[in-house]
């Protein structure tokens, strides 16, 4: 059987959903791969939605909003852009192809563009093949990674960074200190890396208690770094010492902190 991709599309009510309507009105055909969910604004797309859907085996996710400057909600679409930027970086760490997620601007008058984008994205997904998380036997490693990414996207730190990006760059913090885009990107990249690893550690030790050495091997990460993350996770009340084997502490997950 040929591979028919399953694509979920999040479209804003005012521009891109209307653009998809126009494609139909103009009888422009495109592949049947996309299933459209109407939202008031593309800014409604929570990064957690995307990761949840990818975890459940979607072959691709398209988010579409109004062109910059055209947003019905002033700059909701630019908030979307910041979220997708963060998400792509996060997904890139999981072993799933970040190209399975795509953000595009489609206006209410761009029926042709909508159809063309769905066509192009469908071909791109066909070239990538079915999601390793689709079907009866999803790849367990990538699934665990995506779930760790989802937890990271639910946590305070990445969300607050995405939400404050504009303010930090344009207006500065409470002391009026502005951050450059480069500085912000660096902070963001570090936060994505750290939060992703911390959530991975949490998922690993939730299955069975592990030592720093074992974790270091499992995550292919310097034991010093692992230990630092463990310290943070302990402070957050997510991880504790489960038992001690000889002189080696084995860490285990706490459900309480979540």
């Amino acid at each position, binding site marked *: 059987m040929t591979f028919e991709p*399953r694509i*979920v599309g999040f479209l804003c*009510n005012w521009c891109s*959903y*209307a653009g*998809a*309507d*126009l*494609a*139909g*009105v103009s*009888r*422009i*055909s*495109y592949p*049947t791969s996309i*299933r*459209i*969910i*109407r*939202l*008031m*604004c593309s*800014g*409604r*797309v*929570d*990064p*957690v*939605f995307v990761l*949840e*859907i990818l975890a*459940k*085996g*979607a072959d691709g996710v398209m988010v579409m909003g109004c062109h910059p*400057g*055209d947003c*019905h*909600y*002033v*700059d*909701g679409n630019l*908030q979307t852009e910041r*979220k997708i930027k963060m998400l792509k970086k996060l997904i890139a760490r999981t072993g799933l192809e970040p190209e399975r997620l795509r953000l595009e601007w489609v206006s209410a008058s761009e029926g042709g563009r909508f*159809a063309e984008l769905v066509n192009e994205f469908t071909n791109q997904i066909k070239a990538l093949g079915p999601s390793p998380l689709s079907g009866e036997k999803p790849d367990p490693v990538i699934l665990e990674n995506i779930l760790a990414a989802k937890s990271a996207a*639910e946590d*305070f*730190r990445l*969300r*607050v960074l*995405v*939400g*404050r990006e*504009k*303010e930090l760059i344009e207006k500065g913090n409470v002391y009026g200190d502005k951050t450059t885009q480069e500085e912000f990107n660096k902070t963001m990249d570090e936060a994505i890396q750290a939060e992703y690893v911390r959530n991975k550690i949490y998922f690993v030790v939730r299955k069975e208690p592990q030592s720093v050495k074992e974790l270091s091997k499992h995550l292919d990460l310097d034991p010093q770094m692992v230990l630092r993350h463990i310290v943070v996770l302990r402070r957050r009340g997510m991880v504790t010492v489960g038992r001690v084997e000889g002189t080696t502490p084995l860490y285990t997950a706490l459900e309480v902190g979540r």
Partner: protein
Amino acid sequence: MEHAEEEVLRIGVFICHCGINIGGVVNVPEVVKYAMTLPNVVYAEDNLYTCSSDGLSKIKEGIGKYNLNRVIVASCTPRTHEPLFRATCEEAGVNKYLFEMANIREHCSWAHMHEPDKATEKAKDIVRMAVAKVRLLKPQDEPEIEVTPSALVIGGGISGMTSALCLADQEFKVYLVEKEPELGGMLRHLYKLFPTMLNASEGLSKIVEGVKQNKNIEVWPSTVVKQVKGFIGNFDVSVQRENRETANFQVGTIIVATGADIFEPVGMYGYKKYDNVITQFKLEQLLKDNQLKKPERVVMIQCTGAREEKGRTYCSRICCMEALKNAMLVRELYPETDVYILFRDLQTYGREYEEWRRMAQDKGVKFVKYNLEKLPEVIAGHDGKLTIDVYHALLGEQVQIESDLVVLSTPLVQREDAKELSQTLKVPLGPDGFFFEAHVKLRPIDFATDGIYVCGTAHSPKDTAESVSQALGVASRASIPMAVKRLRTEAITAMVDESLCSGCGTCVKICPYGAIEKDEKGVARVTAVVCKGCGICGASCPEKAISMSHFTDEQVVAQALAALGRTVA
């Protein structure tokens, strides 16, 4: 709400053939059969046209007969027909927010006409997604608010006064606040207005008198707006007079008509270095006060500080006409005086203005085109004269013009204090510093915030006629809620779970409408009538403490998972 959770879901699905628009591609009876297999669906039927009066009564019948408490219509786009079906549900006693549409025409049969089997499968998926969502929907109320029938007009120039008069004539109370001690704005300083050559002061004095004598207008000169709280229909405004006297008004709508400033081209073309380099605005005042001494040769330089590559990139729209007009006035006054206009592009757009350019040419005004790449230079000559060294773009050679008066046409720019006002009102300024409308084409004089409007040069450079048109436009816009007196507002709004909120304030910063603030407990509070339901705050809340009614996380994810065929719930 409690009984809503206990209620047994009874979903009815009405699937439309839309003549042959859907039925000609999608196997509708098969979709009906499929719908009946979905959880909580107790009834499904197909209609030739669900939107016909026959189809609508079928929905009402179905609701009664099968005791439906959720309704799905699978037909066309909700962007056109949702209000109709919602109203039908409401008539039959089902809250209109318990209705969901499945778009199987625009997004399915019309787009996949050549693949009927796949289109049928897709239609089933779309119906399944609608079922997944409708199962989780909750009834919503649209809050109703009262509108105070009075307006605040900020700015007593031609725009502000025009809209104030228009509203006052409809018997609305108007508070007109002007920063300067006198009404009149920019027109007080102008001489003659193109294209009619009307004396600005003549036109102005009538309007000023009209405003002063109108019993519905309260004029507050030397006054600035200090604080604005509330929302459409119910704004609390605090103003302050120069003498520190403060006052508070209750208004239903607010009009921003604060005008613009004229750009001071310090350091450009020897301005402020040579006394005989002046702005077009200064020339206008010299002409008005009859103080222009006879120059031998006037050189006007257009686009001084406008249409730049960075910064003021915009065209100021009025300077070409202003230069033509002043050039002709100078020639009339001193027929022996030569007038040169150095331009990059002459933008004499629209009715009458192009004729003015021709007229100026006929009357001996000389035009020289210059390039942005090779700007003219003003060099000191002898006897206090100046030499303008300009690359003549049409001749393709460097030309020197001697002049004893250089006039710079400079753009209108946003006022220094506009930023403060934009923050007070929580309305945006665009990249060029001017007030930024809700939609460039479709809502050109509204702000995204309901009940606040913008007109005149506060919005962008424009001439008097255009400012007056906009002023009448905003008066009309503002009069609608005040005439209707009551408004229904969005039911789709953000809701904060106080127990989860950490008071980080991210939502306060990103809400495009200023609908969220921190309350006395330090947690986020949504003013429901100001919220537009975009959901940006919900998708961004670091604590996931904000949910969106009618588009909850649960509802959106359920719909997406149904799309994957994973689950219907």
